[in-house]
């Protein structure tokens, strides 16, 4: 009898809390989806260097960006032919994700934006800073992008690494090289097939 009471109590409590959570979920789900969409589209606009104001990101995205679905990867192509795509891979301490864009020539970088990273704050964490990322503009990633010791970069495929953050710099170098070359190839195929 006592056991029955306990089971009944647990059942009722579980049901009530589940019903509550389903309610909360159905109420917040659309908002959460919208937040994620805004976040991705703002990052894409940032990488394509299309100016937008907070609140108008979605409208400007729909107006100025064409989405090209290439199976696994989605490309976001602006009117001037630059293409942006998401990238994701391991850093030194945790995953790094971001959006990269390449110029219409398909062999040089337009811009790199880091969306999330868990590198050491103040050291590897500087990979997300504008001052570091702006040096990627116009750099070529064929045959490969090379991270040089700070202050030593000169060639068109070389950028400065971060002193004191060798691990994070190497991880980002590997990640960018693989993703840029692969996606440039896919995009070329897609455009040629049209």
């Amino acid at each position, binding site marked *: 009898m*006592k056991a029955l*009471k*306990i089971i009944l*109590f*647990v059942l009722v*409590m*579980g049901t009530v*809390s589940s019903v*509550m*959570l389903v309610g*909360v*979920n159905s109420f*917040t789900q659309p*908002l*959460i989806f919208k*937040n994620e969409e805004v*976040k991705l589209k703002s990052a894409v606009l940032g990488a394509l260097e299309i100016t937008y104001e907070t609140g108008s990101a979605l409208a400007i995205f729909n107006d100025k960006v064409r989405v090209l679905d290439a199976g696994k990867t989605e490309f976001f192509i602006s009117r001037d032919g630059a293409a942006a795509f998401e990238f994701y891979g391991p850093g030194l301490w945790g995953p790094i994700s971001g959006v990269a864009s390449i110029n219409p020539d398909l062999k040089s970088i337009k811009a790199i934006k880091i969306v*999330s990273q868990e590198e*050491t*704050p*103040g*050291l590897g964490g500087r990979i997300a800073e504008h001052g570091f990322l702006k040096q990627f503009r116009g750099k070529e990633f064929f045959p490969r992008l090379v991270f040089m010791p700070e202050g030593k970069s000169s060639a068109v495929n070389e950028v400065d690494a971060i002193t004191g953050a060798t691990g994070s710099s190497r991880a980002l170098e590997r990640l960018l090289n693989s993703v840029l070359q692969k996606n440039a190839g896919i995009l070329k195929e897609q455009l040629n097939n049209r």
Partner: protein
Amino acid sequence: MSPKKTVKRSFRNAKWFKALIAGLWQDNPTFCMVLGLCSMLAITNRMDNAIAMGLGVTFCIVFSSLLVSLFRNVIPSRVRMLAYMVIIATFVICVDRFLKAYFPPISEELGPYVGLIITNCIIMGRAEAYAIKNGPLLSALDGLGCGIGYTFMLILMAFVRETIGFGTLLGYRVMPGSWVNWVVMTIAPGAFFLLGVYLWIFRTIAKKTEA
């Protein structure tokens, strides 16, 4: 004794006032009970995170204490832990969804630590130590006191860590331009040192006032 004085005394000695004030000082969850330290170390690197976390935890303590207390005569004692967990988890998920929907940047900064409020010992501790034995109003006040006490410590920690570690406060620059950020303050080891210093200070003061 004049009647006026009795009124004043009864207010300070009233049960509800004691319940509320306990968590703020003599039973402060951080430097007296030394509970809830994981989140204390993890998310106090910036002020806005600390405030959001403090509010979230306070909300969860108040409402889970209230519910545990309301149902204290119905909850079979053998499954009371399970009942606490379900009640706490329900509120924590509500907080998590709310932050994700309305404050996505803060939700992202706090990461898994919002969900981990479920395992925050302060909430479970108040349910088991207080709410299961006392009335709903007192339990809610006790929870509120502990929540505020915890938030107070989070803010103290974040105040030092953000100013020294990032040179900012709530995102605004407060340190001079030549200030070199102490990176160690932005990561967990720095928080450990700072927490130790705070515990030292507060325990010393507490000992003096107790004596």
